[in-house]
């Protein structure tokens, strides 16, 4: 059994979903698989119009990955700054976050690379303030960050027990084109 077969099994059961661009005809250059909880965030229903707007901006930001737009990757924890994706502490755990920074609250989507250009997005959390029923991550070394990373581990294990995410030391080990190091 390969991780590809495992992914297909999870797609078939609805435990993972393929994030497709909302607009017909947009290019698809990379693959993002999302968990049902991220789908719930993107698809609603939401409590308020503000929440709806925020979630849809996140969707647009996630589609940057799928449509092959330029993205900045930071492989060093705590130094991501303007990067679209950052590898989190500890690097050997290979947990990454996608950073949707605007408007407040910034949102972080946690996941791991199953293959080059294939990202599995598993969970999410607001960055600066509590939102959507979830606690804010706040500072980079807060307990909430550790818990979010652990949760990402747990969800990966539920889906892909025995399979490791890809590991690398350079941007191209994760994303093959239109990506740069931050």
């Amino acid at each position: 059994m390969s991780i590809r077969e495992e992914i297909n099994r999870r797609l078939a059961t609805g435990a993972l979903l393929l994030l497709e661009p909302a607009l017909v005809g947009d290019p698809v250059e990379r693959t993002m698989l999302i968990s049902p909880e991220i789908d719930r965030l993107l698809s609603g229903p939401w409590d308020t119009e503000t929440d709806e707007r925020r979630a849809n901006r996140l969707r647009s930001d996630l589609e940057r990955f799928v449509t092959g737009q330029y993205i900045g990757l930071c492989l060093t924890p705590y130094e991501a700054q303007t990067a679209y994706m950052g590898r989190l502490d500890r690097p050997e755990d290979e947990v990454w976050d996608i950073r949707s920074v605007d408007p407040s609250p910034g949102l972080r989507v946690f996941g791991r690379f199953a293959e080059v250009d294939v990202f599995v997005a598993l969970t999410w959390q607001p960055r600066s303030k509590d939102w959507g029923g979830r606690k804010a991550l706040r500072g980079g070394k807060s307990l909430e960050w550790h818990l979010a990373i652990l949760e990402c581990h747990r969800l990966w294990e539920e889906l892909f027990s025995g399979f490791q995410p890809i590991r690398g030391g350079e941007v191209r080990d994760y994303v093959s084109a239109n990506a740069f190091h931050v």
Partner: protein
Amino acid sequence: VTTSQPTHFMYEIEAGDIPIPPGKLAYFQERLRNRIYHFVLSRFFEAERNGLTKALLARRLGSDPAVISRLLGAPGNWTLDTVSNLLLGIAAEELEPASSSVLNRKHRNFVAPDWLRTQEYNWIAEKQAQPLRQLAERGGGAPIPGLPPAISPAPVPEPGVHLSLCTGRTPPPAQFGRPRPSRGLLQELLGERNAA
């Protein structure tokens, strides 16, 4: 792999006479920002291959190199002025106003790697179709063009079953927050991890 893409995201936009939901307005706002960022960045990398550096660009624009690095790092705070400055400084170009319809776009052929069997079940398409299907049912069952055939619903889960992500085609609960393991359990795991 060839699959059909959901067209329902465009429903209100296509209708022409009903309000466009704020979320969709926000989606397109962010999309525009991201696309312009991608465009300017592609021009920058092209110019970089011909010798342009961030330091030179900063000098040309009378800006601090750190500011240029930040601007090129993410589209967060861009304004129309930012776009104008960057394009002028990078490539001696200006943005040419043009627009195109977001409706009636050609379907693409490639949606996923060959090994990904996406055509078996398009959950997102099904979810997006649900409100329209309910609308059609309320209106006496008149068909809505473009609506995919209904997929047999999964069995209604027992309370709590949806807590596991791996229980098959269980529809996710219609709530914004998520069920999570208790904070205590995660803290316990965190302690084990740190001890290891």
